């Protein structure tokens, strides 16, 4: 890997991944520490204060939908600059936000970074441009045809296409594709996930044998840093996930075990729903998204009976990526983080 840059621009720095990334890059005892400055874009001024305490972090308050805000983000930079674009919206109030933030916002960041002559840009994409596997035993290879899953998937696909257009025009950009992630800095919806498992109310659809790739957030930070600092052909993209996909039953069991190990009383019986529920929820999600509405529980339920499994062979081979944390340990760390924040599980 090459040396880290003088400045690392991080968009979405107040988000789940953004916070984990900034924490990793500024942790002097950790493997990803870098002496240079982290220039962090946050939308909400309230978030700025929390980040500003950290050493080497310059906070820029701005909205990536406004080009002028991005001019400030990329102003007065030293010679070597990398960008990690983590900003995006996954569970919006209105589906319009998918296009405004994930597509236009990304296009703005790309244009500003390109103009600023950055060294490398890492775009954080998703599994969603590739939809779901066609059956339980199918696994996404590193290269797959686009088959976007509704509004979010379409927006993340279009964002990837913008990245490729800039690469064709000379920008050194690459793409990382994380599936469902977990770990510290998790938002409220993930706390709900723990609560559902603890109380035995997590809705397992069908037999629970569907497989899901997940990624512990620090594994993802590792993959992003490797994508940034490993010289490769621009335009490449890689799945960054835990070492293997997990069956939904295994996820629920493991989280239950992790909660018990951290001292919680876990109710074992689970909510079992027939596959039809998943299909109906998917249809409801599709109908609502067509009218611009987005209802997170329905969306999540509709996706819950699907297999979304990927393999990380390309990231291993090309980036030397080797995920250190697996499900049980990652979930325990995640639970301990929630406890440290005083969150009720």
């Amino acid at each position, binding site marked *: 890997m090459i040396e880290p840059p003088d400045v690392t621009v991080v968009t979405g720095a107040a988000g789940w991944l953004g916070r984990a990334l900034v924490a990793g890059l500024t942790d002097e005892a950790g493997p990803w520490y870098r002496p240079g400055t982290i220039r962090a874009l946050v939308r909400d001024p309230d978030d700025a204060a929390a980040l500003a305490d950290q050493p080497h972090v310059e906070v820029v308050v701005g909205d990536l939908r406004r080009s002028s805000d991005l001019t400030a983000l990329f102003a007065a930079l030293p010679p070597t600059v990398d960008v990690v674009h983590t900003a995006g919206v996954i569970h919006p109030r209105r589906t319009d936000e998918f296009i405004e933030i994930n597509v236009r916002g990304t296009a703005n960041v790309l244009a500003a970074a390109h103009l600023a002559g950055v060294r490398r840009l890492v775009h954080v994409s998703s599994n969603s441009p590739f939809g779901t596997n*066609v059956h339980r035993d*199918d696994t996404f*290879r*590193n*290269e797959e045809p686009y*088959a976007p899953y509704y509004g979010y998937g379409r927006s993340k696909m279009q964002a990837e296409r913008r990245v490729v257009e800039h690469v064709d025009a000379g920008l050194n950009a690459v793409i990382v594709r994380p599936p469902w992630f977990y770990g510290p800095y998790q938002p409220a919806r993930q706390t709900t996930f723990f609560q559902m498992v603890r109380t035995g109310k997590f809705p397992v659809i069908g037999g629970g044998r569907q497989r899901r790739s997940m990624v512990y957030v620090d594994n993802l930070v590792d993959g992003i840093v490797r994508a940034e600092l490993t010289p490769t052909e621009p335009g490449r993209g890689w799945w960054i996930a835990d070492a293997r996909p997990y069956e939904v039953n295994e996820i629920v069991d493991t989280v239950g075990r992790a909660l018990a190990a951290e001292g919680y009383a876990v109710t074992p019986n689970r909510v079992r729903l027939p596959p039809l529920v998943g299909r109906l929820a998917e249809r409801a999600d599709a109908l609502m998204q067509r009218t611009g509405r987005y209802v997170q529980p329905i969306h999540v339920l509709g996706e819950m009976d699907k297999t979304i499994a990927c393999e990380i062979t390309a990231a291993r081979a090309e980036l030397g990526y080797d995920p250190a944390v697996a499900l049980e340990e990652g979930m325990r760390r995640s639970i301990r983080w929630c406890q440290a924040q005083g969150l009720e599980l």
Partner: protein
Amino acid sequence: MTDEDTRFGTEVLVVGSGAGGAPTAALLAEAGFEVLVVEEGPLVRQGEVVPFSLAQMDRQYRAGGVTAALGLPSIAYTEGCCAGGGTEVNSGLYRRPPEEVLERWRRDHRLVDFDLAEVDEIAGEIEAELSVQAVPGAQIPASEALRRGAANLGWRHDESPRWMTYPDGPDARLGRRQSMTETFLPRAERAGARLVTGLRVDRLVLDGGRAVRAEATRTDDGRPVSIDLDHVIVAGGAIQTPALLQRSGLRRNIGRSLAVHPTVKLAARFADRVNVPDDVPVHQVKEFAPDLSFGGSASNPGLVALALSDSWDRFRDAIADWERVVVYYAAITSEGRGRVHAVPGFRDPVVTYRLTRRDKAVLGRGLSRLALVLLEAGATDVYPSYRGAPVVRTPSDLATVEATFAVGRASVMTVHLCSTVPFGEIETSATDSVGLVRGTTNVRVHDASLLPDAPGVNPQASVMAVAIRNTRRFVETLTPGRKAVT
């Protein structure tokens, strides 16, 4: 017309001269049995018709090339109908039966004395007999494109060997296909077997569980022919074999479990003249095998037009450029099953097939994965074969394929038909472990009908191997010498 032409007698009647019938006839004749092979289609020597042409479809295929299995959607299929059967009309690609498939058949169908090592040894003999080998020298460009696309994606791919002999020199297109009319049929005739073409067997006449006579019709003048026999081995393929057995009153487990490899296709247009109309690609993409495999199809102008026809209004300009267009297919291992029903009063049976939800999903994703391979290979335009398909030029267009593909809009077809008279020792088996039809003492099946499921690769080597293995068991247990007096 003499009595000779309308009344035959033989010790062993082999019905059908394809991958099952031809090796069976050769081995039996060599073991000293009196063998009569009857074939419904004509004898057409290689070189008489252009491979993959309309003339070939007319002469060597059943019903001029295409028949359809009814269902939603219906699935078109083709059957060879000529001396040598399907081996005369296909691409000559050869795949040794995969060990895990043989093991699955042995285990799940409780095949007795089904020795995998023996099947492997037989496969070795077949490969020698048919000169199975890789193409020497350069591949045709359409094959090379598939290889390149898969290699760019890091997807597993290989070259399927073929039953071909090649003259010295670099041009692989001058190869001669080692089909049944070049190999096992002459071998059978040299050992004394008789081959009669243009004769269709309508039914077997059974006395108790014993077939005594076959009633047949000459296809040229419609005259009836009667054939007395001691043993009959039916090898008419997975559609005609169960239909003949049903017409003969044999119905138990027969024709109920048709298995196929359904395929969807696309046409890909390149910047260069990649089309070699009388040859087919030998590379296959096996990254998703056995669920899903990709390969190249024959691509003469007629077949290119057929591939473009589902969205003809928008795709038709590509036909003028057919020299730059090649047809490729995605084949799946289907979970669905079909049926063959012989209907009294009709010559051809009714065939039905039902794709499962998973089958349909794998076909759709298979088509877009195949399109991705061809974009990677440098295709400028990809035309998926279904109504309302977009022209795929960029990766984003694949999202449109995913959003608009429905199996019901596609031309689903198959060339691999199996499993309508499955062998084994379980409740659903139609014959015993060596192909003897249950409830009979001398009616055997030696063709693709026996294979308990579709093997996920070209099945003809499996058909030959099983036919030869069963013929060995026949020769071990019976001594030559005609019993019936005609």
